């Protein structure tokens, strides 16, 4: 086994990057721009969305949609802050960024399970 745990993080980064590349734009358009502006009319009604989101397949989908790009962010941000001049403990930065992504994933799992 490799001593380095980097392959795991790189894999999560890559998976999150793919998810973000394919899904982020359309989700931002729908729930961030067109939806709130009223362009989706009844599609964002409470009962409809609740029914749609309560399906286990949707829950799994939403979990991947949120969790993996968080790890994608963590990986990029970890290196970017170092590149931009924060030369503090690299290990500490890695811990903070991947830790935040892990917390975000746990929170999203909790929210989705309760729906």
């Amino acid at each position: 086994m490799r001593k380095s745990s980097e392959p795991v993080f790189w894999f999560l980064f890559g998976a999150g990057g793919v998810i973000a590349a394919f899904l982020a734009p359309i989700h931002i358009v729908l729930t961030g721009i067109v939806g709130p502006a009223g362009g989706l009319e009844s599609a964002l009604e409470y009962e409809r969305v609740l029914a749609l989101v309560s399906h286990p397949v949707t829950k799994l989908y939403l979990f991947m949609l949120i969790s993996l790009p968080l790890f994608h962010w963590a990986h990029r941000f970890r290196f970017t802050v170092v590149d931009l001049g924060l030369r503090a403990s690299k290990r500490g930065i890695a811990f903070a960024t991947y830790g935040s992504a892990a917390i975000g994933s746990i929170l999203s799992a909790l929210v989705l399970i309760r729906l």
Partner: protein
Amino acid sequence: MSKATIVLEVLRYRPEQEQEPTFQIYESEYREDWVVLDAINHIKDHIDGTLSYRWSCRMGVCGSCGMMINGEPKLSCATFLRDYYPDPIRVEPLANFPIERDLVIVMDDFMEKLTSVKPWILREHEKPISEGEYRQTPAELARYKQFSMCINCMLCYSACPVYALDPQFTGPAAIALAHRYNLDSRDQGRSWREQVLSTEEGIWACTYVGTCTVVCPVDVDPAGAIQQAKLSTTTDWFRDVLMPWKGR
């Protein structure tokens, strides 16, 4: 008619007489078909014999004439004056390396990095000569050919901000060459090289800025090589964890 000229601002550093490098302005003869190296040779021969720099082949093969030309790492023998004329050209030693004298950089670090990845064919067992050569199909050759074109010019190191910020980084050309041997069907050194490459100072330090690939004069694509190495290392890692009985 007086001869056309072009101004070269050359960074000079003479350790025995100055603390810091300074720019010196030279006015060289200009010819349409001259490259920057021709102008520098002209200066050396006719204007200032004390200027130091490296060069050899004049044809983009030896990789010794790399310089920063208007801030871009380039082979000075492959960079035409006419692309800058009549503006002055600023010539500096390759970035991210210590300066030894004038345009000459200290390349020890690069040489160490290069040998650290053992860029030659590693075998677990050498075949006796009587069994003949290691044969290779054109398709097997094609897998690594691009990465074997490297001329060790170090332009990629000069373009790499990761190497600039952290000189421990193994760097583009060395990793690309390691990858070249890992892809070679005759080589068996991949897991050995992984111990050097799959480290925080190895492939995992790279953030895929991609400028190494842009400046490479022979299209090696070191940035692609590094990401490919990450991919195969990750695949190896998961195979080792999920199927530990499948030794390599």
